[in-house]
């Protein structure tokens, strides 16, 4: 197990962990905001997919990188709006509407990609985000390179964790969001517009998901591939349960998860024939299920999750 220790101590390993955690942080926070307001958003996988394509296409057409991030967020918000019209205003099943959004966004994404680039065999590339180092800290030996030189989107993700925590727990808006997720009737009695607040939460959450998706094309890779989100959205949903709907724990969960993911990739490269590679690829999904089992005992679901709120109906 000597090389195992080597691997853990290598700077590159921790850099990779943070990189792999970034889309999960965005996605998990986005889903967390939606669920805190009482709306499950199973559209996440598709919204991440279309976000990854939208941001990439923006840059490929000559736009700026940050413009691409903004455009992806806008596209995500748009489908968040569709989801909230269906579930918040019309009170349709959140499960089915969310799956519908995932099917619609991913098929639309692939259709648009094929339309705009009809005969490409190898996906064209863009110049992705350059890493940003934190002045001073980046110069530290070993850890400097690994922890303090990252994609700006990774820094943004960490910032968003702090921002969402602050908003949820320290502002009246956050209190209102949590309230409509726990007890919409009481919230309405306080003069809060339940529907509007839920819509806002789903739109904002979906925008974050799309940014998580676009990290894949604007930072992690430089091209868009079909199927590139590859289940990350579903894992975010498991991570929200794991985090007991708390942003700080969501960050922890995403990091822990990414550590295992980075680990399985390296182990897979080293130990050649002992275990077939498919079993390493299964690890993230098995881990998610285990996390769900362990955390579900203590799960404090937002009480109004999945329950549509109709005025005058109890």
């Amino acid at each position: 197990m000597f090389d195992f220790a080597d691997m853990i101590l290598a700077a590159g390993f921790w850099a990779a962990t943070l990189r792999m955690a970034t889309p999960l942080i965005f996605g998990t926070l986005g889903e967390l905001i939606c669920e805190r307001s009482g709306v499950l958003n199973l559209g996440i996988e598709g919204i991440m997919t279309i976000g990854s394509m939208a941001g990439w296409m923006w840059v490929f057409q000559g736009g700026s990188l940050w413009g691409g991030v903004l455009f992806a967020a806008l596209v995500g918000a748009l489908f968040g709006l569709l989801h909230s019209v269906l579930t918040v205003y019309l009170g349709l099943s959140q499960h089915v509407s969310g799956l519908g959004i995932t099917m619609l966004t991913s098929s639309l994404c692939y259709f648009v990609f094929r339309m705009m680039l009809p005969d490409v065999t190898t996906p064209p590339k863009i110049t992705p985000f350059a890493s940003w180092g934190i002045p001073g800290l980046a110069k530290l030996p070993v850890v400097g390179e690994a922890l303090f030189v990252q994609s700006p989107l990774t820094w943004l993700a960490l910032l968003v964790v702090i921002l969402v925590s602050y908003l949820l727990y320290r502002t009246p808006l956050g209190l209102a969001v949590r309230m409509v997720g726990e007890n919409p009737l009481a919230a309405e009695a306080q003069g809060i517009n339940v529907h509007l607040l839920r819509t806002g939460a789903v739109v904002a959450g979906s925008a974050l998901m799309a940014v998580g998706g676009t990290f894949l094309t604007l930072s992690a890779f430089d091209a868009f591939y079909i199927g590139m989100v590859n289940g990350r959205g579903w894992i975010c949903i498991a991570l929200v349960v794991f985090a007991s709907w708390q942003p700080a724990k969501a960050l922890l969960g995403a990091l822990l998860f990414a550590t295992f993911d980075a680990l399985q990739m390296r182990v897979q490269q080293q130990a050649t024939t002992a275990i077939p590679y498919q079993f390493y690829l299964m690890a993230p999904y098995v881990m998610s299920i285990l996390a769900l089992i362990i955390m579900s005992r203590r799960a404090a679901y937002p009480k109004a999750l999945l329950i549509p709120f109709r005025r005058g109906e109890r």
Partner: protein
Amino acid sequence: MYLEPRSKISLPLAVCAPLAAVIAAMALCSALILWADSSIVDAYLLLFKGALGSRFAISETLTRATPLILTGLAAAVAFRAKLWNIGAEGQFYAGACAATLLGTGTLDWPPYLLIPTMMLAGALAGGLLLLVPTLLKTHLKVDEVVTTLLLNFIVLLFVNYLLFGPWKDPMAMGWPQAAPIVENGLLPLLLAKTRLHAGLLISLLAAVGTWALMRFSIWGYEIRAVGANQKAADFFGIPVNRTVIRTALISGGLAGIAGVCELCGLKGYLTLDLSPGFGYTGIVVAMLAGLNPLGVVLSAFFIAVVYNGADSMSRALGVSNYIADVITATALITVLVSMLLTRYRIRWK
């Protein structure tokens, strides 16, 4: 804006609403066809011609509908009990794996014994696969939406392992596929010179059987009661957990049979692309049918028309064939809305 329940749902409304929804979906998708520089009329004419325009086209559409009927039934039964089984894709492959295990030379039985045994094994494999997340749901309160979904990825990776590892057929020129099913295990064709196989009859039988079960049996009553209101069902002495577990076995079993039918009726050997997402499309099929088992037959046929037709339309016009997925997803959403509007009236205030 608020919703007011309609006191009476008129028959014309109930019939027209889903039709209007499908037309609305096609109208919405016309924008994409226009973008592809094609005439909408031509495109939809080509679509219907490609799906229903000849004996062969119809047979292809029915072949496509067969697995969709079964996965649609799987979703419909589960959703009726509010068991959100998103894992039909994995159960489909579990069924196909079980059939491969028995049907590639292990059993030297005549067809009338071998085929039912394979169907049974496939149903069992699919049912048992869904049993795991269901037990987690009933006993540990683990949300089944995520677990059934994640199991799909695990099962597919496992099949990937089997096909590149122990089950790889050395005669397949290096392709990742299992050994072919023996002659006695293959489903007979229904029409000469087409690919239409006896799986269609099995799926129709399953639809009628499921309908009768849900409509006339105590099991069906219990499933519907648990789905309508779990607390009330519990209060009236219906064994809620046992009912949910039973539902899981039926639902997973149907998805497993879909895998066996596709394997033994169409492909003849297990590959990784045995299902282009039949498990997921089954959810759309079930929702379009309003979770009615007989309606599932119709909506599976409709989706098969869209897929088959869009395939030939996209070849003729050069529109990407992802258009089929876009039309189905849009139809799912518009039908959901139309179903709501048959039950409620929108009031503006």
